[in-house]
């Protein structure tokens, strides 16, 4: 079963129904014990980095979650769920999961045409041709974004998607059984549902 982690404020309902639309039976992970039932884990999330870490720590989910991911459980982080994979963030002083080396940075542009938050639909350029997570999705397809921070991985090999907003930033990553997207597949219409289907099908796992 696909478990969706609930850690306070966040639109898990949409992720839940999107996974259902993909033909899967999702359930909500509220506490550490629920993780065992999950063959696949999705960490959605909007809001602040430090708050996210805090509520995951307080609920006791964080340690078994990281252990599960390290043991090879397929994992998808969405928006804040992606950012938490990284070592650290400019948003708050606490560290993240440290599963992907690098930091999370804040957008800063001199040109006012680039509004912050980056809010709306933007293109995702597929950085690794043939990436199974983007199967049947055209290159430079539009996905929905709503964020002021973006991930900056140290190792470029984890990058599978990039987006231009003021500068190129990393909008999708993959490392072994870990996938993460800065956009919201659950809010990106048909392309978003396709992406989730690809993730859930598991063919991207080596």
């Amino acid at each position: 079963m696909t478990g969706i982690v609930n850690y306070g404020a966040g639109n898990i309902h949409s992720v839940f129904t999107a996974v259902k639309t993909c033909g899967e039976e999702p359930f909500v992970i509220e506490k550490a014990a629920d993780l065992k039932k999950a063959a696949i884990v999705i960490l959605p999330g909007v809001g602040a980095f430090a708050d996210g870490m805090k509520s995951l720590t307080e609920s006791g989910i964080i340690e078994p979650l990281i252990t599960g991911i390290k043991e090879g459980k397929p994992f998808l982080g969405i928006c804040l769920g992606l950012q938490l994979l990284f070592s650290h963030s400019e948003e708050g002083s606490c560290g993240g999961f440290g599963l992907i080396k690098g930091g999370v940075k804040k957008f800063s542009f001199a040109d006012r045409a680039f509004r912050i938050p980056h809010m709306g639909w933007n293109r995702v350029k597929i950085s690794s041709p043939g990436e199974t997570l983007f199967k049947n999705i055209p290159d430079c397809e539009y996905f929905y974004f709503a964020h002021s921070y973006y991930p900056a991985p140290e190792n470029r090999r984890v990058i599978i998607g990039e987006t231009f907003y003021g500068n190129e930033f990393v909008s999708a990553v993959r490392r072994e059984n870990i996938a993460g997207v800065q956009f919201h597949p659950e809010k990106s219409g048909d392309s978003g549902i396709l992406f989730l289907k690809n993730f859930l099908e598991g063919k991207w796992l080596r």
Partner: protein
Amino acid sequence: MAAIRVIPCLDVKEGRVVKGVHFENLIEAGDPVEHAAFYSGERADELVFLDISATIEGRKTMVDVVKKVSEVVFIPLTVGGGITSLQDIEKLLKAGADKISINTSAVKTPGLIKEGAEKFGSQCIVVAIDGKQSASGWEVCIESGKTPTGIEVKEWAKKVEGLGAGEILLTSIDMDGTQKGYDIQMTRTVADNVRVPVIASGGAGTLEHMSTIVKEGKASAVLLASLLHFRKYTIAEIKNYFREHGLEVR
């Protein structure tokens, strides 16, 4: 660059869409799910539901509306109207709304913007500002535009951004319903004074009005109601026009 967004706005009263799409036989009158699915199919970039219920019971039905809509429509959903507390915000977000929009209550209790942004993130707090031309510029009006506040639109926009609003939905009371074009000056003034995206509303009558408010008014999105509902333009027509005039659309 993010694509310029075209956002249909639907008025919902006691759980039913009023002033919705005027298309015979296609849509069951007043069903919010059908309306949402219709516009999503037309490639609307987002949807706004404005709750104009007169009763508390009517308001409660909005949560169910949001739940049902978010089960079939996978584009961002904003809900506005009658939201006065963190609990209201939480209920709607939990039901599947991505953003909530506050107007009168933002003026009456600006703390709601700050607390909402801190708890749920700036990206889900939209502050709607209704502006009316005044001697010195534009004045913020509340309670459906009926009550002037004496607050300057530009200053208020800067303030709500500072409090954590992630977006400003700016409506010109003077132009709303006239189809004579947006208030370009007001929109531009706000857009030049904040960093968050500005959604323009009120006054669109032609495709040129819409591209002008983006190009000259520096709006990131256009909010449309009757022009779409009465089928004067389809979303595809608007986007084609934008594309032909050098604006990026999805």
